């Protein structure tokens, strides 16, 4: 890509703000109602019951903290990698749920009505987040490389 370093910097900041805000928002919606979120996780039928509630309690905190770190820029690489992993796991979960013919609400942003169309939209949104945060994760390396070339 032939982009100058200022354009990269702008894209990086924009991605971090958007993805970070989405994750803080998603986490904040769920942190107050882990019971509901646990039901959503269970509806994917991928995790034994013994682990569902731990995930329902831990994931919203993780989403908020990685979102904050990504925006603030402190520990931004681990934050970006963490978000990538969450997005990746969710991509797998939604793809297998679609393949298994489940009709569920992902529970990503609190609660909604289960629908197949929504699941496809979730898949698209999550792919975009995944690609965006991958750029944000790689940005420090790209910057270092362009600095070395300059």
């Amino acid at each position, binding site marked *: 890509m032939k982009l100058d370093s200022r354009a990269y910097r702008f894209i990086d900041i924009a991605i971090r703000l958007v993805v970070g805000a989405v994750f803080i928002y998603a986490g904040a919606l769920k*942190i107050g109602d*882990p*019971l509901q979120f*646990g*039901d959503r*996780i*269970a509806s994917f039928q991928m995790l034994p*019951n*013994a682990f*569902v*509630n*731990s995930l*329902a*309690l*831990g*994931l*919203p*905190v*993780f989403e908020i*903290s*990685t979102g904050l*770190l990504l925006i603030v820029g402190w*520990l931004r*690489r*681990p*934050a970006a*990698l*963490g978000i990538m*992993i969450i997005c990746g796991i969710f991509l797998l979960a939604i793809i297998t749920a679609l393949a298994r013919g489940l009709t569920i609400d992902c529970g990503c942003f609190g609660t909604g009505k289960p629908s197949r169309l929504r699941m496809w939209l979730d898949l698209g949104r999550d792919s975009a987040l995944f690609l965006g945060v991958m750029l944000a994760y*790689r940005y420090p*390396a790209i910057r270092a490389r362009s600095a070395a070339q300059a």
Partner: protein
Amino acid sequence: MKLGEISKDLAAVIGLALLSLVAGMILNRFSAHPLPLMHHSPAERLQTELTHLVTAPPFESFPVETVGLNEFRSAVESKDDLVIDARSSSYYQRGHVPGAINVSREDFARDYVRLRAELEKAKDGPVVVYCSGGECHDSKMVAQALTSLGFGQVRVFTGGWDAWTAAGLPVERQ
């Protein structure tokens, strides 16, 4: 990007995830409605709720008045007693004493709630409970549960389904 950097980042992610888990657990401890560690489906949670509701008085075991076949038969025929089948619903569906309703020991709360109107109408009247017969305990347990819920005249037909069918008496199917 070097592999070493990625694994360092990965270690930080794992650390962050563990911290988040601990923070989530701590928040949960101070929550007004803490989540148990084991997840239960909404249906299971409702069942627990109902069980709390129905067995509010602690369940106690105590002797119950029993009736013999002749007395049971006249109670069934006169329709004076509310007749309760305490076996599980699959047995009830295959055949039961005419006019009997199914309040099983296994799904007592569910059945009680389903038949609440009918049951509570009979609270002060005579009630007779049976199960398979022989060594079965379901009829006694259901009779005790009903008594602890305030039913006044609950008795048990100990001969049960076996004695009823052995005597060649009429059977109702559903």
